[in-house]
Every structure is written in C-alpha cells, then in structure tokens.
C-alpha cells in the first residue's frame, strides 16, 4: 500500500492529468490538475463514465472495450455542457487497476482559460507552456506579417495605377502615350502619330492558340522598337492595336520609310513551335504641325482614318493622312470589294 502511495505521488508530479480506475470503472485517484478541472466543472470523480466519454474509437462501450484499447490513443470528451476534448491512453497498473493519462491536446488554449490553469499545473518538462508560448509568439508574428501583406497589396494597386508599361510586350501603355502627347503639345513640338493594326491576328489566336498570339504581339513589339529611334514612343493600346509617336519627324518620306520597314518585316511568316503565324500590318499616320495646331485627339483621329484607308485599300500598307481622305473611303472600299 505504501508503494502505491509513493507511486501515485510520482504520477501526480509527472502526469497531473491522470486518473486511476478499476475494471468496473470506479475512480480511485485523480491527479491534481485533473482534480482542478473537475472541480471547476462541478463534477465528482466517482465513476469513469460519469466524467469522460470516449468519442473515438466509436466501438468502445464500457470498461471491457476500454481495456481492450490498452496503449492506444483515445479521443475523449470531459464534461456535459460544452465538453472539452482530450486525448488519453490507458495502461494496466496491477490486477484490476488501470491508469488513464490525459492530455489537453488541441483544447489547450480554451482549457487554460476555462480552468484558470497556471504554469504550476503542468510538470516542468511538459511542453504545454512552450506550446502556449509558441501560439502567442506565432500569432503576433503572423499579425505583423499580414499587416505588411495588406500594405504591400495596397502599394501594388497604387503602383499598377501609376504603371506606364504594357506587361506582355514591355511597350508603353495608353497612360504613357497620353503623358507623352501632353508633353509634346505643351512644348508645341511637331510630331507624327502612326496607328498600326495587326491583320489576321484573331485567326492566329483562334487556330494556333493564345501562346502563338502572344508571341506575335511580342514580335511586333520587337520590330517596333528596332525600327524606331530611342526617343520615339512605341505603345500597345490593347489587343492588336499599336501606336508610334515620332517626335520631330514629319517628313512624309521618312515616315513612310519607317512604316514600310515595319510592314515588310511583319509580312514574313513568324515561326512559333514549328508552325508559321501569318499576319500583316496596316498603318496610318498623321502629323502635327505647330503652325496649324490641332488637338491631340484630332491628330489621333486623322491617323486612325488613314489606318482604315490602308485596311480598305487591301492591308499591309501605309497611308499618310491627307485632306481628301474623308471622301476617299467609299472609293477605297469599292476597290477592296472588287479585288
């Protein structure tokens, strides 16, 4: 008997969440921390089944079933209203006596609050305190991280709003073009706007896929950059629409030269993964002359009108805007239709 008392003292120190039961389920001893929990719950430790329910394995009913699970992990629930989940293991002690040791496991955060547990309720070697420490430390670290993430997400949106680059081709975007045109107009500098359109682009996309389409757009971008000066601005407006802004270049022959080189290079088939993409470029240009000032929108409209004239005239060509272009459309479209 003295031996058993010594032994329970050892267990109380090392496993304060244990209890001792006999084969009928009567509780003979309860560890100090479990005692505190039961007291808080207003429960009297008389019979095992009056205190704990076995949730898993579900087959366990009554003491023989429980004893059959010797050494295996048990999922238990303590208390009636809003029970607390615990893990447990049963080991035989001596004839007809068993120890069930429990752990708070995942309920630990709730349990320390609910039962006002302190460091002294856990043995010094128990990891519970370290686990609580880690939960609080990680929560604080995660909060700091997620605050940073929120700020970065906001900064990303702001940066995108300010961005002036088309992500697919690396060319400038519409915002950059507007800013450039504003600058040219505020200095009253001469320049030429050239609108360019990729013909048959949709067919490439539909038959060879979007990757082929993207490749064509990137090839177009490469050609535009190579065939223009460093100060020229190559813009992708979206889809297969491009624009060039050529500051201080208003000589019709020079402009036509630039357009012709671009058109010629894009007329050659573009290889993509063993297949050929066939496209063509139509272009239209309009010059801004400071002596006859027009709004930048008007200049762009003229370039677009010239572009449509090129398309109607059979594509893969360049048209410079001229005053009689407004009457030309009908004739041009008739010409296209009769081809």
């Amino acid at each position, binding site marked *: 008997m003295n031996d058993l008392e010594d032994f329970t003292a050892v267990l109380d120190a090392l496993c304060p969440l244990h209890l001792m039961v006999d084969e009928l389920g009567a509780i003979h001893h309860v560890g100090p921390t479990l005692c505190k929990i039961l007291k808080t719950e207003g429960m009297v430790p008389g019979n095992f089944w009056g205190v704990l329910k076995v949730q898993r394995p579900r087959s366990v009913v009554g003491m023989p079933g429980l004893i059959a699970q010797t050494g295996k992990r048990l999922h238990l629930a303590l208390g009636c209203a809003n029970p607390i989940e615990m893990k447990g293991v049963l080991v035989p002690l001596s004839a007809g006596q068993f120890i069930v040791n429990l752990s708070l496991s995942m309920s630990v955060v709730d349990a320390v609050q609910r039962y006002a547990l*302190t460091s002294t309720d856990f043995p010094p070697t128990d990891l519970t*305190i370290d686990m*609580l420490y880690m939960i609080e430390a990680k929560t604080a670290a995660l909060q700091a991280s997620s605050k*940073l993430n929120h700020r970065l997400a906001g900064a990303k949106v702001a940066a995108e709003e300010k961005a002036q680059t088309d992500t697919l081709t690396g060319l400038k975007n519409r915002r950059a073009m507007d800013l450039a045109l504003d600058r040219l107009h505020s200095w009253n500098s001469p320049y030429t706007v050239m609108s360019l359109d990729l013909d048959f682009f949709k067919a490439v996309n539909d038959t060879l896929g979007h990757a082929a389409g993207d490749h064509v757009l990137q090839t177009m971008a490469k050609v535009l950059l190579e065939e223009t000066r460093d100060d020229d601005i190559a813009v992708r407006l979206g889809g297969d629409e491009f624009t060039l802004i050529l500051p201080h270049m208003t000589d019709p022959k020079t402009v036509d030269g630039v357009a012709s080189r671009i058109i010629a290079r894009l007329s050659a088939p573009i290889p993509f993964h063993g297949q050929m993409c066939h496209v063509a470029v139509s272009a239209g240009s309009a010059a801004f002359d400071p002596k006859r000032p027009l709004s930048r929108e008007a200049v762009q409209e003229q370039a677009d009108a010239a572009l449509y004239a090129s398309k109607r005239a059979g594509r893969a060509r360049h048209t410079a805007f001229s005053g009689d272009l407004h009457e030309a459309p009908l004739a041009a479209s008739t010409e296209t239709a009769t081809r």
Partner: protein
Amino acid sequence: MHGLVNCAIQGFAKDTYGDGVWLDVVRIADLDFVEFETMWMYDDAITPRVLDALSQVLDRPRPDVMEDIGTYLVSHRTTEPLRRLLRFGGVDFVDFLQSLDDLTDRARMAVPDLILPKMELGEHGPGEFSLECHASIAGFGRVMMGVLRSMADDYGVLAVLDHNTAAPMKEIVSIHVVEAEFAEGRTFDLGVKTA
C-alpha cells in the same frame, strides 16, 4: 538588423514622445522611409544611427534612452504581448532570469530570422546574479536593465541593478534580488488572448 528591433525603437519614440519626435529622428538619421516594417531586414548600420538620432532629438544620453526603451518594451500597453512572452519564461523572477539563456532560441523559434543578442546568466550566491550580454549594438545591456527592472516590478520583486561594460560587445548587468516577495506582482494568466 531585423525590422522587429527597429520597430521597437520606433514604437518607443512614437508612443512615448509622439509622431513629431519620430519624424525628427527620421530626418536626422537620414532614413529614406518614414516607418520601419516589422518583418523586413535592414542594414545593421541603420539601428545605431537611429539610436543616436533619438538621443540627439530627446537631448538625453544614449544609455538613458536605451534603458527607457527596455522599460517601454515590457510595460507599455502596445507591447503587452512581449511582456506575456517573457512571463512564459518563468513562474518567479529567478526562474525568469534563468530563462534568459534560452531567449535567443525561443525568439528564433517564433521568427526564424530574428537573431537576438546572446545572453548568459551567472549565479554568484543567493540572490546574486549577473547577465552577460554579447550584442553588436553598444548599450544593449542598458536595454536589458530597463527590461529587468520592469520585469522585477511585474513579479513583485525588489531588485538592485548595475551596469558595466567589460569589453566592447560584452556588457554585464549585475542583479541583486533584495526581496523576493516585495510587493504584489502583476498577475499572469496563461490563457488571456492578447491577439
């Protein structure tokens, strides 16, 4: 230096003296941003520059400022989570002192790239301790003085502290625990959710 350390200094300046003081520090330390990010790494040279700037703006010796930072770290409302984490270290003040040896490892468990200065506790008889701090930042021992003074209050312990610099990067805080149960300490509830 980890952003958490720089943020602690920034938090001290703003919470104690207001945003104006912090903006002066930013200007004098010549930072190219206004706020530190807690989870970013910064060049090691920035932290001493900020501390010197803070000492200049407050017109107080840097060791005093650093001790105040230590006090702030464990006693201000906004740093309550840190006090709690330190309290997890021990059930009483002496137990807490002994846990300081592990503080570096504990911190790294929570934030893997946070490297705190190494600390070593020596025991020299009943109630007599010394804390050896090996820090790259001069005056780190002063920060620990502030932390220890506040934690002694927290545990309700009367302790006398002294600081001396044994060598560059080796500062020693001597701790004399006069009365282990001097006053009612602040309670520490394991389960209080601070999040």
